[in-house]
């Protein structure tokens, strides 16, 4: 009865406070959903990939991975593929597991068993003196990275492919011996290696986008008609207005795909109450349109988990992507000690009216 009353009051509050988004009501379920949604499968496939890998949504069916294999000499990019069905089967035993944290750890460590190697992408190798060699069919080209980016030939480099399209590849080169702006270098290239473009930093990107030099690779960069985002960056390139916008990542949490901003989501601890999420373009425009508004009620969560808690000690976002959010909560025990932890998992969509929070401890912190 008490819960219903709180939900009713909460609903009234949301209705009156939010003018541009639909009110949502929350319900709680202890454990994981009975079956994994596409967004949850994407999370599982993302979290489980090996170190130095990047994931690419292939199509409706599955995922492609590019993996920088540092144990080879020369180091190279390997490609793998897995289907959503295989991901679902691999993690099926997690749902009913008695110890979901331990099971989750086991399954993520064993995930490579469902990744099948494929060879349809160009061969990319990093050899001595940081010489990058690319091969596709009969075509082969080499790039001296030290010279191109003004690095030392002996610097430790990591090569990754943060974005991949049907026609093109976005190569990110990270110099772990450098710092600041000089740490990253970018190469855009067509899959058949007929064209490539080397970019040094954010300003060059904006300039190159504006003068049309990157038109061929726009599908790797664009968020929409006006904005582009460099992988891993928190500044939006506004190539229509020839400027950049800071998403203030020290305060806000940016979704993995860069499309959404959780206002205040990167603060020390997520406060109990209403949280607002915006599309990136709405955030830049200073609009009051919210993609979603989330009510976080820690008392309800504590009651659902039947934890004797003296309060929430830590609360933060551990995964935020289109369609799915995972939070971490830690509860204090009275006087001293820890009362327990949980992950809060919920699906996210625009104007979502009925939001279900799944409370399961996967050990994600």
């Amino acid at each position, binding site marked *: 009865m008490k819960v219903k009353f709180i939900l009713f009051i909460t609903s009234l509050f949301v209705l009156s406070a939010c003018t541009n988004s639909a009110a949502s009501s929350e319900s709680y379920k202890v454990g994981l959903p009975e079956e994994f949604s596409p967004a949850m499968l994407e999370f599982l496939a993302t979290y489980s990939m090996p170190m130095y890998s990047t994931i690419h949504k292939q199509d409706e069916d599955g995922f492609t991975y590019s993996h920088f294999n540092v*144990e080879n000499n020369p180091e190279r990019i390997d490609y793998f593929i897995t289907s959503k069905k295989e991901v679902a089967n691999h993690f099926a035993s997690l749902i009913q597991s008695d110890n979901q944290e331990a099971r989750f750890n086991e399954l993520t460590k064993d995930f490579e068993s469902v990744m099948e190697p494929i060879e349809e992408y160009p061969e990319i190798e990093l050899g001595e003196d940081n010489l990058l060699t690319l091969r596709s069919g009969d075509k082969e080209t080499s790039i001296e990275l030290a010279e191109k980016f003004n690095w030392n030939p002996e610097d*430790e480099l990591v090569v990754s492919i943060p974005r991949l399209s049907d026609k093109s590849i976005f190569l990110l080169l990270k110099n772990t011996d450098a710092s600041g702006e000089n740490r990253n270098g970018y190469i855009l290239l067509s899959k058949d290696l007929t064209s490539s473009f080397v970019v040094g930093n954010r300003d060059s990107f904006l300039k190159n986008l504006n003068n049309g030099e990157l038109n061929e690779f726009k599908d790797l960069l664009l968020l929409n008609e006006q904005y582009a985002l460099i992988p891993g960056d928190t500044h939006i390139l506004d190539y229509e207005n020839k400027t950049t916008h800071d998403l203030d990542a020290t305060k806000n949490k940016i979704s993995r795909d860069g499309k959404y901003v959780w206002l205040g989501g990167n603060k020390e601890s997520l406060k109990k109450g209403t949280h607002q999420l915006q599309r990136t373009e709405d955030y830049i425009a200073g609009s009051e349109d919210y993609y979603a508004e989330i009510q976080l009620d820690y008392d309800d969560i504590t009651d659902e988990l039947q934890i*004797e808690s003296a*309060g929430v*000690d*830590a609360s933060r976002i551990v995964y935020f992507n289109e369609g799915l959010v995972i939070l971490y909560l830690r509860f204090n025990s*009275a006087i001293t000690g*820890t009362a327990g932890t949980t992950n809060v998992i919920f699906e996210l969509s625009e104007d979502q009216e009925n939001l279900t929070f799944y409370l399961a401890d996967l050990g994600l912190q």
Partner: protein
Amino acid sequence: MYQMDPILKQILDIHRAQAEDIIQRTASKRVRDAFVSCWNYFNNGSISASVSGDKIRFDADEIIQTIDKWIKDFEVCKEAEIAKLYRMEDPSYQDRSRVINIQNDIDHHIRYIYQMLKGKITQIDIEFSNAARAYRSPIHQALNDMNRLYSEMNDIKGPFSGFKDVSVYIHGIEDNGDSFLDSAKKAANIGDVLIYENRDGDISYHLVTEEGILGPEVIKSIDDLKNNKEFSKDARLHLIYETEYKNEHRQKTSDDLTDKLIEMGLLNEETKLNMFAHSYGGRRSFQFAMDYPENVSSITTIGTPYDENLLSGLANTFPTIAGFMNKVSDEYSDYLDFNTLNTTTNNQIKFSNAYTDMTSEEMKEDVKNLKSANPEIYSQLDDMEITAVAGRDFHERPSGRLGTSTVKYYDSHDGAVSITSQHAESLGSLIDQRPTYAIEGESITNPAHSNEIESEEFIELIRKVNLSK
């Protein structure tokens, strides 16, 4: 005088021979006494085996299994005699009364004595376990020392040998390492490695990079960590240590931590350890520093009860009431202290834990004993940089005529431990610094004590200590 049926006597004779064999094998006077006293009730001969030998070989489970088998022998005998009676065409009165007597002897006499014997063996097992538990820690320490010496002499490296600067974080009672992991991450510098092994055995590796901290979503194994191009042993390694039992005694923590550091290759002359601890974790780190002073360069504690603690004393005396607050003051901890006051008994098993320790011993007692027993180690402890931070609660009240401004009122404790105790005033000049931090808290349920690890000032202090090589 009533005489037992000869068939029962025959079986008892066989059991007696086996009992004598058990006594000789165990070579325990306590076991012999148990068998002798039980056999006297049978009024069927006595146990004559003597006890000799230097080593006691006692396996309670094996002896109890043998006694269970003896009980079964009599059950089989009883059933055979009943079946034989039923097969008789016209059994006499003597035949019937014989079987009734056998049945009564087995059900009400022999079985009872054998059960009593099993109880005595269980009791001996508990007494042996209690005695063995008391000696486990000294043996563990001796084995650790041998292990360390062997590793040094044979130049055996651990997976993290080569790290020179190591921070070790130790939590307090009823806690785990989660909060310290958060604070250690905040205090860490680019390049630093953090390792957190929880009491379930799960290990997570974290690497601080310019873009942020890579955690288990990227680094899934020690190989991943070592293969990462930003991994370097020139950086600092942060070990967030979680105790096997959350309320275990400080000596057990010290013994287990030693094991862990040897295994990792971090207990050697080149590696200097900076210990950080909260609450009872302070006593745990102090114990480790007393055990291995040459390896520790600093201890930094916050909220540590160096003196006897009133709340833990109450929890120790009234475990049921503590249970209402979700405190497990009688949690079994696989350690027994030689100080009989520093023990508790649960289901006849004696052990010592953090609660018995805080109730019965002040750290100054151990330090005083150390000073007289081994002045050299005391001197090393004295050279160590020791900072005992006190957290304290505060509340704000309106002030001024219009009540427009506020004034902070500070308590003399952090909701669990007094400032005097946290500052280890009783340890005198052994403590180099005694800062006091105001920490936010709410009432007794969520006092400042609970929030000390995450306090900005404490994190800043960790950062400073980590930077001073």
